[in-house]
């Protein structure tokens, strides 16, 4: 009896996941159409580049307002947070999140189709990066450690699974990614000394399929030699709080990991602290590690290396290469061979003062004098980093990697000078900074052009298009379109606040749209002719 019911459910679920008229076929993830933006970065590469040209450097001045949607959490939700995620567009519907909330918005009209509110038990409500979609289901994480699946038609709940432990101060914020019919989910948390991990779930049942820990959990685990002892490694952090990228041909997904724990005071974790602050290639079917590159060995400044690792093919020294590039929070830019993790280019995209150069593996060598000190060490970048979670973009048309860079100084203090600090044990204070959009030539790591945000600063996420454009939030609470080749600012429009995510673009019924979030408002711009 029980078995019969189970089989029936399984058949229904399989049909649902195959993708009906309104759903997302798995093929749409590998080769997304220009009428969709089916995952956080638009496609698996993390490039955030669109081939659309209806809006281009010649006509962008005529871009005009489409509609504006203000997050509405219903009567019960006094504060719905702000848009720090990227909406996903499937079949003319935008799926948008903030912590504990999901909305389905009609992409042509801005009309709300449904809203889902989660009854929260706590957790850090700092931001939510968005949803993943497969078939007629969507998946998102909650601050109180759940991975939740909804029906995209009406926002009704399909299942919920606990993916982390609130008692240990984990929380959920990252947008899951669908790879090979698996829901790939990471975790957040940087208060207590706990390990980061990544896991895969069955999209139909929600069952966990594998878990990979970012830091060694027992004897024999790779990287254990980079910690003083097993206990330090087991509690060593390395949160997986940004969406992964993926190469379908190599069948490798690229996980970016956060800072080691304890965060600032570091006496009890001597060593490189693998695999924190790293780009790690995993097999998405098994969770087994293929290679890792650590961009901040023994980080002591809260410099997560979770910035998007962008996948593209290019040429280095005349040789065609499969590449992956990251502008890391620590101020350094890396281009790696994505088949094996070997660094080909290392450079700084925002001048820093904490290194003694690069080692023979292309990693920055930390200057111990610039570790946090009891009496203070003046360091750039500051804790916020030269870049943070807002996504960069790569244009295959210009060969440039674009990132909003912040050059800020602050003083790092150790508050807990003891031998066994826990948690934070220090922090940075003060600060002065400036920011600029950097266009980096991936072949050399050199800055091709730099657009300074003169009147303030911008950390906004980016979008590039084949229309020779880069879209970025500016320093005047605006969305700005720049010439991708020269950096010249061509168009802007004032928003209700500073852009709080990375813009996306798509074409519906022959019209190209650009959509960006600012605080609790989603703005849509459209080329009407």
């Amino acid at each position, binding site marked *: 009896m029980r078995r019969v019911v189970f089989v029936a459910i399984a058949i229904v679920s399989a049909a649902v996941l195959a993708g009906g008229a309104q759903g997302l076929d798995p093929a749409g993830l590998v080769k997304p159409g220009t009428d969709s933006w089916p995952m956080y970065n638009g496609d698996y590469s993390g490039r955030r580049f669109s081939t659309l040209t209806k809006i281009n450097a010649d006509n962008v001045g005529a871009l005009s307002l489409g509609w504006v949607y203000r997050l509405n959490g219903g009567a019960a939700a006094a504060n719905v947070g702000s848009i720090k995620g990227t909406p996903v567009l499937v079949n003319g519907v935008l799926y948008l999140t903030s912590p504990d909330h999901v909305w389905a918005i009609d992409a042509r009209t801005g009309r709300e189709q449904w809203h889902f509110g989660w009854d929260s*038990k*706590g*957790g*850090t409500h700092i931001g939510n990066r968005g949803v993943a979609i497969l078939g007629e289901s969507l998946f998102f994480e909650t601050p*109180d450690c759940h991975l939740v699946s909804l029906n995209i038609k009406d926002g009704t709940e399909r299942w919920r699974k606990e993916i982390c432990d*609130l*008692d*240990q*101060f984990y*929380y959920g914020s990252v947008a899951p990614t669908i790879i090979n019919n698996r829901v790939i989910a990471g975790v957040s948390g*940087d*208060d*207590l*000394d706990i390990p980061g991990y990544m896991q895969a779930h069955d999209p139909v049942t929600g069952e966990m399929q594998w878990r990979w820990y970012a830091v060694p959990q027992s004897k024999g685990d790779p990287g254990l030699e980079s910690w003083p002892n097993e*206990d330090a490694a087991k*509690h060593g952090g390395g949160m997986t709080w940004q969406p992964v990228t993926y190469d379908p041909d190599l069948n490798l997904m690229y996980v970016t990991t956060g800072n080691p724990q*304890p*965060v600032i005071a570091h006496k009890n974790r001597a060593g490189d602290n693998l695999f924190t602050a790293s780009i790690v290639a995993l097999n998405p079917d098994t969770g087994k590690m293929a290679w890792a590159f650590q961009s901040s060995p023994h980080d002591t400044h809260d410099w997560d290396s979770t910035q998007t690792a962008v996948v593209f093919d290019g040429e280095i020294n005349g040789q065609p290469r499969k590449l992956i590039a990251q502008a890391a929070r620590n101020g350094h830019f890396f281009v790696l061979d994505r088949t094996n993790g070997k660094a080909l280019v290392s450079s700084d995209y925002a001048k820093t003062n904490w290194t003694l150069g690069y080692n023979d593996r292309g990693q920055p060598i930390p200057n111990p*004098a610039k570790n946090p*000190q*009891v*009496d*203070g*060490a*003046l360091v*750039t970048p500051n804790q916020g980093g030269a870049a943070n979670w807002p996504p960069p973009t790569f244009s295959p048309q210009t060969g440039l990697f674009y990132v909003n860079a912040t050059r800020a*100084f602050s*003083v790092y*203090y*150790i*508050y*807990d*000078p003891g031998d*066994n*600090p*826990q*948690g*934070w*044990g*220090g*922090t940075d*204070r*003060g*600060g*002065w900074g400036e920011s600029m959009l950097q266009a980096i030539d991936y072949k050399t790591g050199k800055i091709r052009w730099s657009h300074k*945000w*003169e*009147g303030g600063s911008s950390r906004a996420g980016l979008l590039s298009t084949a229309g020779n454009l880069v879209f970025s939030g*500016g*320093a*005047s609470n*605006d969305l*700005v379109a720049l010439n991708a080749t020269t950096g010249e*600012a061509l168009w*802007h429009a004032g928003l209700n606040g500073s852009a709080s995510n990375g813009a996306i673009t798509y074409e519906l019924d022959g019209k190209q749209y650009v959509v960006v979030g600012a605080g609790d408002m989603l703005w849509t711009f459209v080329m009407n002719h």
Partner: protein
Amino acid sequence: MRNPVSAWTAAALVLAGSLYVTAQEPRPQPPPGGRGGPPSGLQQPRVNAGANDKPGVDPVAAAEGKKIWALECITCHGTNARGTDNGPNLVRSLVVLRDRFGSALGPFLKRGHKMQSGRSSALLSDDQVLMLAHFLRDRVNDTLRGSSEFEVKNILTGDAKAGEAYFNTEGKCTTCHSVSADLRGYAGKYEPVDIQQRFLFPRNATPGGGRGRGRAGGGAAPSPATAITVTVTPPNGEPVSGVLLQLDDFTVSLRDASGWFRTFTRTPALKVTKTDPLAAHRALLETITDKNMHDVVAYLETLK
């Protein structure tokens, strides 16, 4: 933030008086919401239960717990419960992290655990367990970002003489400052860490300020002495100057001396000149060494 201090301080004082006996007073009501309350029979504090990940701590109960800790636990688990060779780190213990007002610690200790007195921990009263639970949660909270334990320690490590030399020569500080004028008696105004922060990042400094705890007041309105000004010269017009309000590729806005807000559309022919009175301070960050920085603080601290 931490320690949402409860209304049950009075109740806790009663408890404190009854350390080794069971409190006779009526039990306060259980906290609203919150998962995993204490097992039946355990004292229910009227402390804010907090979100599931942030249970409240009553400082009075935690202080009482500390006394029991010193008598029965400290030699093995350490002053801050971070472990010794004789007992594990309890700040990282799942028993402690899962505990809500004794819900996990109680059953653990009831099973019988070593204590310094040689007595069995099963003999601890529910109230004693509760106080230990508050003490241990407080030790967990010590480690969190923003913990009140986290304070700047001694930053007066520099050499005042070297700082004075730097101030008068290499640092070029005397071009704009004088220890007998604007910086006269400066040491009396601020804590050393504030001196360090204010001289490195004067734009963040609250005008006036005071001897605080080193949290440089960000977001305060800029003092006239630090405001960035701008002069805009139209192709065939008079220059207009004022405090810069907004500057991007498209427009420039300022408030002029008579108080008017002015905005100009930027064109190649419109001249825009920005003046930052703190440009020297910005440039300083590129060149100053940590030694110079500590020496300058030590020197400024002598300006009594």
